């Protein structure tokens, strides 16, 4: 994400963010079928923020869907055993469960780097996926668990108005999560996290435990994934083992690269393009939407390695150079 030294265009960025949030809030009023779509874009953007945090340290997790699934199943289990709850409770449960999981698994995986880090995360996520599939008595196996529609701040919404209320809550959460993630990355801990990518040896020679720094980043990323998982479970009203499958982890990494891992905006830009392409391509070109997304990713890697936000930044720099 943007370092303070790069914040010359912070005013412009703020205007872009506010404009996009306003657009995301208004479009569903005109196109009601987009309400859930935009909710999913924003919720998955929160998850991708978590993936992007780890990318700052040069670490790619191919297993972060497990935290997404933990967040979703925490909500589903509550609804199943305790009855309907409030959205705030659901979000607290989902994020807290994922944070706890992240802290425990993180203690182990932050000892490793690069491919070993990525594959260990994948291994843990596949263990969780298998448990969700096989413990049918508790999880309903591949059928998943239906998520009961919650109240929002104590108000019971009808289905047609609930999707809008959920959308606006998700947009607020997305903005707050982006701000928190950016503040973290601008803080000493965030800079130390970035330092792991470029020179872990020097970090240790400054008296800093790189493992501890990475663990804190890892737990924060798990928190964000759990929060996003809880939101998606509520939006789709179900939690299934597919939430924790390795292809879902790959999807989050895909979105991060597509949008650009240098900024919070990249998480949401990537999520928007991914979900919209999938939404329309799946409807009009069944079974080939993956092909379209694959071609898009190849083009991004070849021509815009810094993602969609990288293209925006490059165009802005070129425009400034011409002035």
């Amino acid at each position, binding site marked *: 994400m943007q*370092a*303070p*030294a790069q914040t010359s265009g912070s005013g412009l960025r703020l205007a872009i963010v506010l404009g996009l949030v306003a657009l995301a809030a208004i479009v569903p009023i005109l196109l009601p079928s987009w309400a859930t779509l935009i909710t999913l874009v924003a919720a998955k953007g929160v998850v991708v923020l978590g993936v992007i945090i780890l990318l700052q340290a040069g670490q790619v997790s191919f297993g972060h869907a497990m935290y997404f699934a933990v967040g979703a199943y925490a909500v589903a289990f509550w609804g199943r055993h305790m009855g309907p709850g409030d959205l705030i409770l659901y979000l607290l449960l989902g994020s807290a469960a994922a944070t706890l999981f992240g802290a425990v698994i993180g203690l182990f995986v932050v000892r490793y780097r690069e491919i070993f880090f990525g594959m260990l995360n994948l291994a843990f996520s596949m263990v969780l996926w298998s448990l969700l599939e096989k413990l049918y008595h508790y999880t309903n196996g591949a059928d998943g668990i239906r998520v009961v529609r919650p109240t929002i701040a104590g108000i019971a919404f009808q289905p047609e108005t609930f999707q809008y209320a959920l959308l606006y809550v998700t947009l607020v959460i997305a903005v707050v999560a982006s701000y928190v993630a950016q*503040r*973290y990355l*601008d*803080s*000493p*801990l*965030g*800079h*130390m996290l*970035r*330092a792991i*990518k*470029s*020179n872990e*040896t*020097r*970090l*240790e*020679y*400054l*008296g*800093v*435990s790189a493992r501890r720094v990475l663990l*804190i980043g890892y737990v*924060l990323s798990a928190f964000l994934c759990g929060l996003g998982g809880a939101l998606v479970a509520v939006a789709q009203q179900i939690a299934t083992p597919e939430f924790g499958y390795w292809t879902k982890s790959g999807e989050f990494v895909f979105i991060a690269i597509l949008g650009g891992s240098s900024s919070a905006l990249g998480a949401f830009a990537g999520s928007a393009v991914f979900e919209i392409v999938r939404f329309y391509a799946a409807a009009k070109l069944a079974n080939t939407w993956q092909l379209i997304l694959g071609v898009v990713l190849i083009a991004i890697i070849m021509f815009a390695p810094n993602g969609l936000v990288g293209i925006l930044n490059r165009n802005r720099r070129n425009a400034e150079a011409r002035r």
Partner: protein
Amino acid sequence: MSAPLLQARGLEIRFGGVVAADGVDLDVIEGENLAIIGPNGAGKTTFLNISTGYLKPLAGTVTFLGQDITRLPPRAITRLGIARAFQIPQLFLEQTVMENMMIAAAARSGETSGWRRLLDRPEREEMLRLLDSVGVAAFAERRAHELPEGQRKLVDIALALALKPRLLLMDEPTSGVASSEKMGVMDILVAALAREKVSSVFVEHDMDMVERYAHRVAVWSSGRIQTVGPPAQVLGDPEVRQRVIGI
């Protein structure tokens, strides 16, 4: 000069058939600049690696301020007051020079905030003064990877000084610096060490530098300390001149 700051006793280490240290005893006295000279591959850098916890000796101990640090990891030794500057500068290349320095300042104070902005910390002026004292303040807002090698070297030293260490270990502090600028850089560096009351050990091949800036010289040859003493005495020793200096 007074009590030993760092004491190495009976250090032994070998790499395959190469003996880098074979019963080495060496003291670093508070307030001194100790130069270590010797042929390439003699084990000079190995001493720095052992003293900072990067390597563990097969035998022997290193104590710092009376505490055994032989088996401690680098970060624990750093926190006790030993900093290191490297032969090849070790910077956070994607971050600015000021961000590099502020990370060091945060590390020194044990900062663990995940909220307060790094560049809003109160040490910013202090870090700028430190960069100025080694002549690289003009590069403060540049990314470290954009700097020429010589400037990177100075930032690497500034990074170590930012920790306010009691002892600074340097491996060829002016390698990579243009020949015409070496003495100037060392003048600045030694003045900074004296001002900050930091003792130092520096590995060096340039005998003019050793003669001018070291209080004592240790000659490291074939894994052993051949002799230790004032520069004039050591560099005037015919055997040292023949075996180490090559004249």
